């Protein structure tokens, strides 16, 4: 099991690197496009209609990839309760249960993401982009990829607690805006 988990972790690190590059590019697209649009409107009198659509799609992609990175960094917002006051081994029980729930929930999202693709979205197209693309690429696809990656992460943490008895402890809460 230890060898499997090591390889598993290697895979997750690879995914994390890809996700980092992705979110940097996505945010750069949002900033660049919207800024470029303002410049183009005021300096050249040319409003670019497709910019809003493109940057909104970058935004949706960024949500799910960012949330997935957040799960890897254990940054998802939770409220500390009695659990964090328990001994480490008792906490591990709760952590294993919550990791299992996250895995299950994300798998449900993946399955239903595919359903949403086939049921609604194949017929929908982008509106203003210079090339017409199926909307699936910007709705269900990021959701499926993000959820799949989160399921992988949570499943890894679950297995880690179960088999490797890794040292676990409570992380701090995260802050919302």
């Amino acid at each position: 099991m230890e060898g499997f988990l090591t390889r598993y972790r290697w895979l997750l690190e690879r995914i994390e690197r890809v996700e980092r590059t992705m979110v940097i590019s996505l945010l750069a697209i949002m900033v660049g496009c919207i800024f470029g649009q303002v410049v183009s409107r005021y300096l050249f009198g040319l409003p670019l209609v497709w910019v809003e659509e493109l940057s909104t799609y970058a935004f949706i992609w960024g949500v799910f990839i960012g949330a997935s990175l957040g799960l890897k960094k254990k940054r998802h917002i939770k409220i500390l309760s009695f659990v964090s006051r328990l001994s480490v081994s008792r906490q591990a029980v709760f952590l294993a249960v919550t990791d299992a729930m996250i895995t299950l929930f994300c798998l449900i999202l993946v399955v239903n993401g595919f359903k949403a693709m086939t049921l609604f979205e194949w017929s929908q197209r982008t509106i203003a982009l210079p090339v017409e693309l199926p909307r699936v690429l910007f709705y269900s696809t990021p959701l499926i990829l993000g959820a799949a990656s989160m399921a992988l992460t949570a499943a890894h943490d679950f297995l880690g607690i179960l088999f490797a008895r890794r040292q676990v402890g409570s992380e701090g809460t995260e802050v919302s805006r």
Partner: protein
Amino acid sequence: MILALLFLVFLGLIAVELPIAFALGISSICYLLLEGRTPFVIMVQKMTSGLDSFPFLALPLFVLAGNIFSRGGIAQRIFNFARAIVGHIYGGLAHVNVLASMIFAGMSGTAQADAAGLGIIEIEEMRRDGFDPAFAAAVTAASAIIGPIIPPSVIMVIFAVMTEVSVASLFLGGFIPGVIMGLSLMAMIYWLALTKRVNAPRLPRQSSRVVWQTFFGALPALVAPIFLVGGMLMGVATPTELGAIVVVYGIVLGFLYKELTLRELKDIFVESAIVYGILVFIISIAFPFGWLVAINKVPAIVAQWMLSLTSNKWMILILINIVLLFAGCFMETTAILVISVPVLFPLATKLGVDPVHFGLIMVVNLLIGTCTPPFGIALFITMQIARVPFAAIVRAILPFLIPLIGGLLIITYLPQVVLFLPGLLK
């Protein structure tokens, strides 16, 4: 009945420290399982289609702007300028702390960008000057929540997207209330210092040369909020566009002052993406949750119940204030927002409360919740920076709850305070 279960499961999952996003999602799925008529796929569909909204993009942009501006240089310059202006008043650096937060609020959209960037400088300087660290932490927490009241504001963007209220109106609506709350905090500090309830060393009055010097140092930072509010008032650009401009401005400034490297910039991008991804992921799961609440006519039931108590609009608003303040003691801001908006917003509009006014009431209410024990995120952040025990910061924050709640009451009962600036838009 099954709906009560939805809330119970949600609270149960929160209690075992499942992250809020997943607690919302799993309780929604439990509900759908029991109800048995609606397919899960609706949930996925509501999650993504709700995100397809251009005003929503203001959120990542202002998270990014806050993270860029909170890096060392700019925050320090704002602090120096504030010290030169108000450092000599009774209360010394405590006033500086509030004023610096108010100025910084004009660029940053989240309380934690304030607490984490500026807060470290503020608390360190106050400690060095002989302030009680617990008092320093409390002032920093109380003033940090002004950040999301003065525009820009991430929490207002969330409210706007959930209710389809204009982001620009909400932003402008927050400006005067934010200034009022800052001034009332300063009044409380002045009184505490004057009556010697806290030890607050005063600084010597600065010469006008120093004031001008620090003013020019802070000028790049002072320009941003004026530009932002002016830009919205004159309709030059949408809040989202202004967000992108502020980000580019911050990056250019960072490179000009040689305070930013490409490597750091990448890290800021990743950090901002994590913050906004987590936040908006919660909202996206809150869309189906809110939809379930709406189709079960919960807003109507709550409205009926509240109206059976009183039909007076102002009484109901105070009731909402109390409920939200109470919830804020135990729950996290975003969680309360996504649960309560679908229930309370229809009620408020039915009573004839202006949507922008109601937005401000909710936002300020929830932000005060970040400063109330036992669960106050702003307190947790600043107590860690100041390295003081929780009990100490709780004692120190108590007097500041008076001006904060006083500010909330002004906002609630004098809608004109909120609605004056947005009114200029039309």
